[in-house]
């Protein structure tokens, strides 16, 4: 067994080693290696089908890798479901389509996992939920059902729902891609605040503005590989790889 920390700091939040994910003969990930230090904000960009969402979903084993290792805060994710559930409480995830629970009110959406997983009492869970809803700016919607919220509001509830579990890491899977343009900012603002507060974040996004202003590091992925891993400044002003240049020229020409 290889020592997982042979060339990384033990306290690194996320360590990914030789991650492969194949669906039949479709090779979504072809050997991804990545280390994310505590408090860093990583933005992942790349063309569609490049494996960025797959990689993100492997980080909490929502997608089981074909091979390779994922370490979360020094803990190797494995086959043991119980350990996996515990690890997932430390890793919040925000989805493109929000995935709020439509049969529960906003408040219940934010309290359910706290009660079921963390074993918090109703009062405690409600307190924490209201704090998180205030943080994302919609405490007044606590008793509303998700279908009566705008997309931006729904996504903010989804963020509050994840934060209520007190995760160490937040994963964002194209959180603004399903939103109307006027609602993108309200979600990005919440994410920016979160980044400033020192949350470790990995964001798959097409919002280059967010990458510029919030990211500590930017990953450019293509064909299941990390092609370029650098600072936002480096990536946008001085891309090294041809594929990165081509991608940037396609998305930034307007």
């Amino acid at each position: 067994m290889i020592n997982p920390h042979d060339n990384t700091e033990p306290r690194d939040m996320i360590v990914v080693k030789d991650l492969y994910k194949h669906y039949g003969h479709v090779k979504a990930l072809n050997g991804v290696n990545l280390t994310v230090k505590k408090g860093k904000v990583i933005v992942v960009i790349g063309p569609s089908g490049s494996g960025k969402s797959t990689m993100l979903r492997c980080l909490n084993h929502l997608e089981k890798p074909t091979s390779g290792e994922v370490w979360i805060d020094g803990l190797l994710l494995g086959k043991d479901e119980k350990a996996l559930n515990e690890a997932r409480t430390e890793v919040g995830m925000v989805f493109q389509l929000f995935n709020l629970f439509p049969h529960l009110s906003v408040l219940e959406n934010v309290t359910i996992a706290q009660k079921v997983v963390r074993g918090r009492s109703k009062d405690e869970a409600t307190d924490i939920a209201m704090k998180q809803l205030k943080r994302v700016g919609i405490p007044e919607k606590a008793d509303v059902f998700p279908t009566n919220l705008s997309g931006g509001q729904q996504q903010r509830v989804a963020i509050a729902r994840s934060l209520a579990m007190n995760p160490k890491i937040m994963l964002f899977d194209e959180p603004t891609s399903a939103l109307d343009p006027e609602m993108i900012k309200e979600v990005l603002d919440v994410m920016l605040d979160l980044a400033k507060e020192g949350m470790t974040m990995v964001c798959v996004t097409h919002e280059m503005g967010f990458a510029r202003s919030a990211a500590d590091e930017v990953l450019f992925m293509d064909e299941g590989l990390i092609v370029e891993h650098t600072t936002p400044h480096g990536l946008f002003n001085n891309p090294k790889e041809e594929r990165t240049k081509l991608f940037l020229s396609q998305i930034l020409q307007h």
Partner: protein
Amino acid sequence: MDNTPSISDENAGIQLKDISWWFLAIILIFVWAIYIFLTRENYQEAFNFIKIGIAVTIKTSLIAYAFAVALGLFAGLGRISKNIFFNNLSRLYVELIRGIPMLVLIFFIALVGVPMFVDGINAFGAWLVSIGLGVIGAPLSGFGNRAFTMNSRAIIALSVTYGAFLAEIFRAGIQSIGRGQMEAGRSLGMSYGQTMRHIILPQAVRNVLPALANDFVAMVKDSSLVSVLAVRDITQVSRLYAGSTFRFREAYITVSVMYLTLTVVLSLLVQLMERRLRNND
């Protein structure tokens, strides 16, 4: 249709096609039935004889349906489970039941399945006695077929049969809930079971509530099949009445009206529920 004279104006717009003629016909049947039950002595006699079976019909349907829901939920979860054993067992159960006529199943379960089960329990009890666990083993080995009355065998047979139908309804209901719901639950650290219970099933059951209720109506009707086991439900009692008096007309009109009353009332309740659910969306 073009030359149909339109009688509608802005205020009163009732047309022939807007009227539920079938429903009026059913009401008419009920009115006629009430009339003959009130006026004809033969029918009164038949009614008074057959009504003693109503309790059995309702009790059998209700208990069997409760077991069928539990069994169906379990098998439905099995149908979508990734566990190979559980999945295949559920599939086998559903396919076996759906491939055999209900009447044959009722004979089989009541007259072959239950005795085989009792034999198994007896053998298990005898084995326990032989290894020195007589305290538990003795009562099990002495457990007789008589412990299962025909009424309880009928309930077992109906439950097992309907469990397979309900399993498919539950499966469809669970599969109608998007993948994202399970993923959201799991990403919050909830286990598969917890997500199923708190997130997926409440939504799935709500989606299939009308289908579940329809199957209850169907079960009330199919409960008449248990008359072949001599269970004294309204079908069996009316057969007895017809057999002893040769008043077939009175017997079968009476029992038909009884079933129709039960099913029409239940169907109306189902429709009401469906409307409620739709309005809540």
